[in-house]
């Protein structure tokens, strides 16, 4: 008989027996053993794990300024970052997703930016200074004079005007940021942005990586245009997917929307050079990220669910950063009687508002998660204080259900295949279902893949929906969409004219320029929403960044998740 190669099947058999053994064996085995095996930082077995031994030699010469971090062990030369990709393009004007934002910040600088995690005050970046007129319709920016693109050409006002106008005309996902705003180069170093309406939030919009500044000449050469018909005429995306054309701390080494995108430090960067010369951003399923960072196959992972963090927190080789994400999770009840007699009834809203067990739901969102008292997340201007959050009142809710005739059944739709901050919609929906059952509301879950769920959501056909809202820019104006007639309001069957009192506040706040005056108006907006609105804000989940300690300091950034340039600094 021919010999049978013994190794592979043996390995499988061993795997199975070990698996079965593990299942039958120690109770807390999963946690403790894992920690044990991880404490050694020696990477495991394979030549792929970034091995300190081999990296040592190279690392010593290429990364000299590492010494001050005091982290244990030598710092890896390449930063390996795991992210579950939602990456579509490396063209800043076209990207509007989380991964694209991370890449965009690294490749392209914006006129203004946020310092560290403070997203309340935009600070100058490519612009050295800026002024706004009194009614917030005209903004004048003076550019720095020491900024050069990778091809050596200096940053000019034309680059800025081109980039911003191009975004508006591309009619992409982020184009609304420039809605009604025109950029004009006044001279080489001065740009004026004119808005059709008062736009006090514009300075908070400008740090958005979608508004990154491109090398206008280079992009024009490669098919770019900022003309009205850019949506069809602009063909620069392909070029921008192979080569970056910005002034950012990194340049694009390899772009891939499905496997890994690699960034290399920009040798001519005008600011302080980034700590890491090379960043590999890998597309890794959230489930495997925890394993990767524990086994040192990755330096930083970004999608861990709150439930996975508990075990990692005790690991001395890991640095677990937990913050409340600025994303808000919310429920809505459709106000359109054609969709549902039940959900459109104000009594139903009351039953839901006081029937939800907010704390039980919050429990799922992680230790760093917070309840959101109004629709505006806690890091932004105008956020309500915790004491204003609706509190569960079972009696009140039950009474409301009785007014509805008791025993109500509604459908709740949510995207089944979508994960944000490691959190799935399913368990949250299940908990909503369980807590509402306690006040006599039967919720039938009707999950759908996001493509189909979005369709019914957008058409305003969901009886109840569970969705999240990620801020487009850190200004409360972004949350007016939840009011009657706003884009989310419409999805909940709540058109303009449904609530004149609320809409009056919305109108007023939109044209108010001074933050001190805006704040109480936004608070009033939310109070009225909490009283009569169709939205039920639930929580801001835990956002986590888990890094190996030898990477150096890492921060979660509320606007763009992680600032790669700042890692290790």
């Amino acid at each position: 008989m021919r010999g049978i190669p013994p190794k592979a099947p043996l390995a499988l058999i061993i795997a199975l027996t070990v698996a079965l053994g593990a299942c039958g064996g120690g109770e807390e085995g999963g946690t403790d053993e894992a920690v044990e095996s991880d404490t050694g930082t020696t990477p495991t077995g394979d030549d792929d794990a970034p091995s300190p031994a081999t990296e040592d030699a190279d690392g010593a010469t290429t990364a000299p300024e590492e010494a001050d971090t005091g982290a244990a062990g030598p710092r890896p030369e390449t930063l390996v970052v795991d992210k579950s990709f939602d990456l579509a393009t490396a063209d800043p004007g076209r990207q509007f997703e989380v991964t694209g934002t991370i890449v965009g910040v690294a490749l392209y600088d914006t006129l203004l930016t946020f310092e560290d995690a403070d997203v309340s005050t935009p600070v100058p970046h490519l612009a050295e200074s800026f002024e706004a007129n009194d009614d917030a319709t005209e903004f004048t920016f003076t550019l720095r004079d020491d900024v050069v693109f990778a091809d050596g050409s200096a940053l000019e006002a034309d680059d800025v005007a081109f980039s911003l106008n191009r975004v508006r005309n591309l009619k992409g996902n982020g184009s609304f940021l420039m809605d009604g705003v025109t950029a004009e180069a006044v001279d080489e170093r001065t740009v004026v942005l004119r808005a059709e309406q008062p736009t006090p939030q514009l300075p908070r919009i400008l740090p958005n990586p979608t508004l990154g500044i491109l090398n206008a000449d280079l992009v024009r050469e490669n098919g770019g245009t900022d003309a009205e018909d850019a949506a069809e005429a602009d063909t620069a995306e392909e070029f921008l997917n192979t080569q970056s054309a910005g002034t950012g701390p990194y340049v694009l080494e390899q772009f891939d929307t499905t496997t890994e995108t690699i960034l290399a430090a920009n040798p001519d960067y005008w600011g302080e050079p980034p700590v890491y010369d090379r960043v590999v951003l890998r597309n890794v399923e959230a489930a495997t990220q925890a394993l990767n960072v524990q086994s040192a196959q990755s330096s930083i992972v970004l999608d861990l669910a709150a439930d996975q963090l508990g075990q990692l927190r005790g690991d001395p080789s890991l640095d677990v950063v937990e913050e409340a994400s600025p994303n808000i999770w919310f429920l809505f009840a459709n106000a359109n009687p054609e969709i549902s007699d039940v959900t459109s009834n104000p009594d139903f809203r009351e039953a839901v508002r006081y029937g939800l067990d907010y704390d039980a739901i919050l429990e799922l969102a992680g230790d760093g998660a917070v309840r959101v008292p109004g629709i505006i997340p806690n890091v932004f201007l105008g956020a309500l204080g915790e004491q204003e959050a609706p509190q569960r009142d079972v009696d009140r809710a039950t009474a409301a259900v009785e007014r509805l005739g008791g025993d109500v059944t509604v459908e709740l739709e949510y995207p089944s295949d979508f994960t944000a901050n490691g959190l799935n919609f399913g368990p949250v929906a299940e908990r909503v279902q369980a807590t509402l059952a306690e006040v006599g509301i039967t919720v039938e879950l009707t999950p759908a893949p996001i493509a189909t769920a979005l369709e019914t959501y957008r058409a305003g056909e969901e009886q109840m929906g569970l969705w999240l809202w990620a801020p487009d820019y850190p200004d409360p104006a972004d949350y007016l969409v939840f009011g009657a007639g706003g884009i989310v309001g419409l999805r909940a069957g709540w058109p303009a004219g449904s609530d004149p009192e609320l809409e009056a506040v919305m109108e007023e706040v939109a044209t108010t320029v001074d933050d001190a005056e805006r704040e109480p108006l936004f608070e009033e907006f939310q109070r009225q929403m909490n009283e009569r609105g169709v939205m039920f804000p639930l929580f801001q989940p835990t956002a986590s960044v888990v890094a190996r300690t030898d990477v150096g300091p890492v921060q979660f950034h509320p606007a763009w998740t992680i600032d790669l340039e700042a890692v290790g600094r």
Partner: protein
Amino acid sequence: MLSRFVARRFAAAVALAFGVVLVAFLLTNLVPGDPAAANLGQRAIEDPDAVAAFRRQYGLDQPLPVQFGRYLTNLLTGDLGRSQQTNRPVRTDLAEFGPASAELALTATAISLVLGIGLGTLAAVRRDGPIDQALRVVSLGGVSVPLFWLALIALYLLSFRLSLFPGAGRLGPGAPRPPSVTGMYTVDAALAGDWATFRSALGHVLLPAMVLAAYTIGLLTRFTRSSVLEVLGNDYVRAAHAKGLPVRLVVRRHVMRAALVPIITVVGTAFASLLAGTVLVEQIFSWPGIGSYAYRSATTLDLPAIMGVSLFVALVYIFVNFVVDVLYGVIDPRIRAS
């Protein structure tokens, strides 16, 4: 004669491919859900101009028959359209993900061929003995284990806890890819003589391939066993033994050659089932292949990608069947003659 055979084969293949494309097209258009909603994002979808631009860009503003006709015309020039999710030509996507899946599926096939035929033959030769019984349980276990569960266990135990294999992905993070010839990293690295990359690529493909092979190993073991048993009972095997040939020669030349014909049929079908299994395994191992591409295209209603994947899979199916038929002829002269 032969050319007529090939011509008929080709016509059937074209008809089948056309049918597959048509079904894919109809299915994705019957399904509720708007590709624009799925791909444009929350903001742009509210901008009628953006939606119109998107529809124009992907030709969704045309009536269905026109869309289909346009697709077919483009197909003739090798243009499969542009994927809405990757924003690249579907052909580029397929050229990248196809070989990745092929590498996985071929490795899995190789593993299952060696183990399945080897173990199956062993079981047949040791019929009804303890080895046979044990192999029976093992092979039935192979076809019974849920692949996604096995993949998770393998990843957790063999890669993470025991560090026998590298983790997810095709190469180590940031490792340079070998110069693309076939798109299969192991092959390309070997062609380039880059043995470090070869080892790394092989290490990465081995674990998912072994998981993927679990089912086909089981299948082939059982099938080979019964196939060989059937052959062993044949007069010509007894005749071969009566000639005083060494057992190895009898098994290799006389038994295997006859047993191989039915086995090849199963290998062909098994290969197709491997492609289906890749959806789950690729997801778990972050393997950028056709399976995860198909999953993503289907969930995002990425019409050009769905049609491209369907066409690709159909062509693979046709090709595998063709290879199987050719192999029949190579092995069995009676088939060659007819």
